[in-house]
């Protein structure tokens, strides 16, 4: 008997309206996340990785963006169709999110104690005292010493790494089943990044939480992801379990990306094999495979028909006509 996934995204489409035209940021993506697993989503600017996950919680600004199609199934509900109060019960409570810049969700004029206890009280109905005690326990859990005293501190009094921890504490306050992490360590020093990753992994094990981790750094995911989605120009081009992806990548973009990564543990020699060209214009969306202009394996069909995801090995899918 197959256990149904925690989250199921089907044919998600998200568009942004700009003065230059309509940007097809997310162009029909489908994937799932199982309970307790870590799904990595990797892509560069314009790949749609952030827009895709912001769509899960309907955090796309109504001024300029629209989720124009698809379904997102969580706990037998389509998140794109539930009403506002149902969505509020899910956000921050069952599905939580952390961002690259902690100041996105930290109010600079409120103490962090107030902000964490507020989140707890709103979602769990605890009293102020109970919420405070939980907040102290959470801060200690994320490695902030003298937690009780620090409840009275303001965000500006913390370093970047510590603000990130506070944001994580807030995100985990209600024991969500799914944590979406959108480039949470990109702006952090590499040693602080290592600390934050270890901490999230530990909390994940304790809480049985699933994590979607978005990054542009393919090297990062090798450490802790179970499965990886590679996105390019608003589409998923490859999906595979972590060992498979690094050892046997099948999409030319993934292959090119892996080859172009410099490594600290070996001499890379004379030239780093770089992928030529630049990502496509998402307004004038090209016909056929969006990666074709940069692809050394491209054939005629690639420029005419957009490839679909096809299975090439167990749990390993690739959207490519050539599949080198």
């Amino acid at each position: 008997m197959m256990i149904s996934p925690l989250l199921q995204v089907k044919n998600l489409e998200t568009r942004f309206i700009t003065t230059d035209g309509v940007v097809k940021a997310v162009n029909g993506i489908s994937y799932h996340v199982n309970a307790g697993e870590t799904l990595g989503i990797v892509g560069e600017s314009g790949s749609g990785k952030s827009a895709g996950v912001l769509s899960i919680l309907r955090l796309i600004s109504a001024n300029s963006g629209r989720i124009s199609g698809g379904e997102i199934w969580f706990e037998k509900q389509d998140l794109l169709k539930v009403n506002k109060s149902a969505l509020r019960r899910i956000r921050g409570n069952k599905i939580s999110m952390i961002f690259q810049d902690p100041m996105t969700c930290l109010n600079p004029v409120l103490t962090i104690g107030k902000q964490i206890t507020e989140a707890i009280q709103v979602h769990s109905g605890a009293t102020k005292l109970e919420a405070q005690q939980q907040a102290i326990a959470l801060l200690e859990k994320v490695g902030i010493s003298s937690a009780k005293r620090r409840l009275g501190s303001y965000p500006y009094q913390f370093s970047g790494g510590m603000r990130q921890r506070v944001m994580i504490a807030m995100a985990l306050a209600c024991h969500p089943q799914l944590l979406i992490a959108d480039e949470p360590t990109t702006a952090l020093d590499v040693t602080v990044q290592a600390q934050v990753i270890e901490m999230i992994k530990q909390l994940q094990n304790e809480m049985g939480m699933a994590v979607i981790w978005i990054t542009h750094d393919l090297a990062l995911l090798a450490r802790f992801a179970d499965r990886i989605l590679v996105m390019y120009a608003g589409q998923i081009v490859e999906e595979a379990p972590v060992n498979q992806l690094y050892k046997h990548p099948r999409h030319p973009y993934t292959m090119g990306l892996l080859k172009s990564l410099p490594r600290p543990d070996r001499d890379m020699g004379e030239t780093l094999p770089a992928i030529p060209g630049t990502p496509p214009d998402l307004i004038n969306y090209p016909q056929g495979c969006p990666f074709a202009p940069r692809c050394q394996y491209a054939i005629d069909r690639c420029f005419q028909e957009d490839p679909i995801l096809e299975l090439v090995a167990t749990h390993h899918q690739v959207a490519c006509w050539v599949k080198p």
Partner: protein
Amino acid sequence: MVAKTHPSKPETDTLLRVENLQVHFPVSGGIFRQKQVGIIRAVDGLTFEIKRGETLSLVGESGCGKSTTGRAILQLQTPTGGQVYFNDIDLTKLDAQKLRIMRRQMQIIFQDPYASLNPRMTLKKIIGEPLLIHRLAKGESLINRVQELLELVGLNPQFINRYPHEFSGGQRQRIAIARALAVDPDFLVCDEPIASLDVSIQAQVVNLMRSLQKRLNLTYLFIAHDLSIVRYISSRVAVMYLGKIVEIGECNSVYDYPLHPYTKALLSAVPIPDPEIEAKRERIILKGDVPSFLLPSCGCRFYSRCPSAKLVGDRCRVEEPQLREINPGHFVSCHLWDSQNPL
């Protein structure tokens, strides 16, 4: 190519020599009268040299002083102590006019390609400006030179009348490189030049910088926090922590045989794109964040976070270690490697 009109020194091996470089910032406090309450020793006695044609990388985390060092060398930030010898001339002793002439030989590329190009200037103005300032070209010859430079960095020379906003981050960085090379310098300070770029573009720009180095015999001081790219581009690397160099040596030596506990922790934190290797790696997780510069420092600056501090008794806490050569060309500043107490 533009003829060199500045005086060139005979081809000595060492292009840049930094001795005991210091950049200290006073911190004032007080309610009624601002008085000095402390000093931030951002760069605290750096000594190193860079040979002609090589790339020395300065690595370290936020606040270690690496960017300040780059600026202090170029005198964009006035050092509070020490000397900077460029072709054996001490830059810190030059007056404004002489410094301006010297500046032709040294240029800088910044991290943010969106902030470092004036959005109101065309490429012709941006890349042509240094040529005008140093009176190297004007009119027709200026246009030719700008187009030549655009080609050199892999951009279409027809773009000469376009504005920065019409280009992507990677292309803007190429424009910044073209501007830096306009005056035919010998030395380039590259302050995190690829950190803001997408991964697939980083490789392109780094390859460009390497090939330009070979073609034009450039010398680079590369400032970065990305240890993977640093290994690829550098001949030698210096690791900084809180204003001091804790380890310096040939790249392969430092990466394959790191000596300082901080270097080891730094390297263990760098992700490697291989899940099997990652699963087996030794992780050294440092506790806490980088301490404040303002705290009184005696003893080793890394003491509070060092996993090996207790091994040498009290010495780490009270005595500041000095840079010592342990292997040929490989120096480390750490009591664990003291000749009296070898590890």
